[in-house]
């Protein structure tokens, strides 16, 4: 797997205005990579959802967004975004992915929807150990 090295970007998540900057930046990078308008929208929205989760439910509402362009021979060009925090973690990741929006507030809100928007999603989380959500979208 080849990373477009220097193009990787790290954005801190400190407060709700970072939700906007993160999704903006993600959209810009997606556009640069040649993603169409709808995919840009999917990516920006997914980043918005994940970043908001951090602001709302992580400890101090702090975390980080890493935007990483990816070039991989079989799948072509793609975008990988990692949203991480040191928050309370998700107790039951599988359940968080199953439940719909009607599930109560807390870490994991909006995850099923985000998963639908992306091609790949991985969640690394445990109670008390923070959360790392990795999402990927590949250009068709």
């Amino acid at each position, binding site marked *: 797997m080849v990373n477009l090295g220097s193009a990787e970007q790290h954005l801190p998540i400190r407060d*709700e205005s970072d*939700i*906007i900057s993160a999704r*903006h930046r993600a*959209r810009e990078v997606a556009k640069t990579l040649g993603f169409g308008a*709808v995919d840009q*929208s999917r990516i920006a929205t997914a980043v918005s959802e994940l970043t908001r989760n951090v602001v709302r439910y992580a400890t101090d509402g702090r975390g980080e967004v890493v935007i990483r362009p990816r070039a991989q021979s079989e799948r072509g060009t793609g975008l990988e975004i990692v949203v991480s925090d040191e928050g309370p973690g998700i107790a039951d990741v599988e359940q968080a992915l199953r439940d719909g*929006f009607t599930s109560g507030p807390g870490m994991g809100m909006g995850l*099923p929807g985000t998963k639908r928007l992306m091609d790949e999603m991985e969640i690394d989380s445990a109670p008390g150990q923070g959360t790392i959500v990795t999402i990927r979208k590949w250009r068709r």
Partner: protein
Amino acid sequence: MAQVPIIRVGEVLIASVQEDLRDQDALDLQVRLGDALEHTTARGVLIDVSVVETVDSFLGRLLNETATGARLLGAQTVVVGIRPAVAITLVELGLELQGVRTALDTDKGLALLRRLIAREDGHGQSRLR
């Protein structure tokens, strides 16, 4: 805080959402619309999101709630200007905004509001001038 401007046109309150609405500004808009409906004779709310590139679950739910709240205050709500990319994304997210009436643009939105308000009145014509 970047306040979303609310303009009164006849019986309708028009709110044009600028891009990059922070969560707090969105909630603030909801409150101000409620206040306006409570203290004026406005019967309709038109929310224009044509400049908005990203509508996520927070904003989607907020629009739903605003429409429901307006209904309780005796007003109809129409959201206009949802972009194709946004519409597709919302549907894929699982947010179909079923409690919200929608129209393509402000013209059609106002026409729809007129019809909805007239229907509520039980008259053939709305008082909207």
